[in-house]
């Protein structure tokens, strides 16, 4: 039972991470390989506040969200001057630097990381189910934010920026402003996930947030379907669950993530559940047939 709870907690965290990257990549079109950095910043913020400043979990959680969001704004600045493909390099670099800071600055525990982060307590209940509920409540928040964002003017603006920056600027959309918005929201969501991660795992190591983890998050978004709501959710759950359920796959999971990315780019760049993917078209066709079957042809 505990194993499944654990699986579900991590799945929830990864869903949030995938959704956060989806906002940055899918909505705003900013290809970022640094999402793990935001994840790490949130985790360490929360962990340090709890460990070294004796703050309760709630404080750490919200501080992680706010702080990571601010850092996201700052780290989003390069995206204002840098072209698409080069943003990838810049975000890769950011990821390296953030991890290096965690590794070499003693305040963050150095290479040995942080250990013994206290567990949050909920009304005295000792098993992990409340934590599971909390995590998935947060997932709900992330879904709501993503969905709401896609329906508002901001979402529309982000889409415009993604499709054509010059055209967006030409019609009066402030490209820098909305790019930064995307970074803030994306980072804040990831930061919150980091906090949940830190207090669940109770120990943090810099290498948990290495560049490879960013690629894993990328693979979830890409396999599921960039820009959609359902895509990253499915991508995160499947890609997280698969290596757990198929033990042989576990050793090869990074090869799998990489390989899946390549296959997706070759055959279904919009993702398995993207808008024009083979799967979605099939599903739509089936649904349409079911609808028309109820009425006279």
């Amino acid at each position, binding site marked *: 039972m505990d194993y499944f709870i654990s699986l579900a907690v991590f799945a929830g965290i990864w869903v949030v991470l995938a959704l956060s990257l989806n906002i940055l990549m899918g909505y705003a079109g900013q290809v970022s390989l640094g999402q793990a950095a935001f994840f790490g910043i949130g985790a360490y913020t929360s962990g340090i506040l709890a460990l070294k400043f004796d703050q309760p979990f709630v404080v750490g959680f919200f501080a992680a969200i706010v702080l990571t969001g601010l850092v996201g704004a700052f780290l989003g600045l390069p995206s204002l001057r840098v072209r698409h493909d080069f943003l*990838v390099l810049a975000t890769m670099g950011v990821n390296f630097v953030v991890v290096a800071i965690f590794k070499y600055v003693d305040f963050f525990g150095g290479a040995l990381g942080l250990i013994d982060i206290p567990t949050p307590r909920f009304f005295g209940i000792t098993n992990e189910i409340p934590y599971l509920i909390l995590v998935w409540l947060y997932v709900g928040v992330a879904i709501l934010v993503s969905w709401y964002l896609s329906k508002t003017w901001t979402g529309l603006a982000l889409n415009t920026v993604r499709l054509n920056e010059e055209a967006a600027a030409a019609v009066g959309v402030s490209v820098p402003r909305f790019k930064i918005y995307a970074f803030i929201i994306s980072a804040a969501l990831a930061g919150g996930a980091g906090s949940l991660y830190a207090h669940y795992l109770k120990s943090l190591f810099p290498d948990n947030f290495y560049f490879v983890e960013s690629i894993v998050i990328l693979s979830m978004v890409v396999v599921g379907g960039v820009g959609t709501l359902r895509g990253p959710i499915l991508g995160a759950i499947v890609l997280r669950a698969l290596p757990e359920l198929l033990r042989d796959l576990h050793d090869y999971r990074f090869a799998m993530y990489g390989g899946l*990315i390549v296959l997706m*780019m070759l055959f279904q760049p919009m993702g398995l559940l993207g808008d024009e993917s083979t799967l979605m078209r099939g599903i739509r066709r089936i649904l349409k047939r079911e609808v028309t079957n109820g009425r006279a042809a």
Partner: protein
Amino acid sequence: MSIAQNLSNAMVLASTYILIAIGLTMVYGVLKVLHIAHAGVYASGAFIGLIAFNFAREFFTPLLEDARLASNLSFWFSLPIAMLVAGVMGVLIYLLVYRYTWGKSPTISLVASVGLFTLIQDLLQKPFLLGPRQQPYPAGGAGMPRIETPWFTLTPTQVLILVVTLVLLAIVYFILNRTRIGLGWQAAALDPEMAAAVGVNVTRVILLNFFIGSMLAGAAGVLVGVYDNMVFATMGDVPSYKAFVVVVLGGLGSVAGTIVAGIVLAIAETFMVAFAGSLMPRDAIAFLVLILLLMFRPRGLLGRA
């Protein structure tokens, strides 16, 4: 350490950077793709080289009496093999992936490249190659002499790196500037469509691109593996990033620029470590340079717009 000694160390470092970066800039020049998987080819070169080296050593050592000779022979056997395999790998990457993703948005090629890199790196750690732990590559100087001058000293391994790099660069220069296909490459780098229109076989140029560039990366992998006496699966991580710094600094698509930029970056790193070591880790310089470049002079030193 004297300035001259630092300089000579920097040149050795620069050689490795240049060898990796040339392949990257060549691919970008013609395909406009950031070939992140190139670092995977680099690491693969080191692995294949080591495997070939170990194999050859097993063969030669009982045959010849001299262990030293056996080791050196094994190195010179392993280097071309590593280069060949790396070259083929690069070509395959183009044929299987980039050829299909090229027409679609550049993001797709980029993401595919990232996926490829992850895939290659993970496979390198598997037991069917050398296993997850790091391995030594004890080829030493492979027969090269030690050079001692009053101002600086070059160990045999350093001499090896410089010699191999110079020879390879000379060959590449010859191919690019004195052969027809090299001319075709220059044309294709300037404008692939026009080049195709005037009869340049762009596909052949692209294949040559990947082959040569990847061969150089494979050589770099072997040389770095020997120099550090260390081969490990994630050795491509830092180069995956630094090589791009060199490429952007030199001006994307410019081979000459890459050479200059490689030297500049190596000198900057070496001197910073020598004289201000505690300020920040060596690799951070590359990051800083990249951010500044991307934001203020994406053209680099010698690039066109």
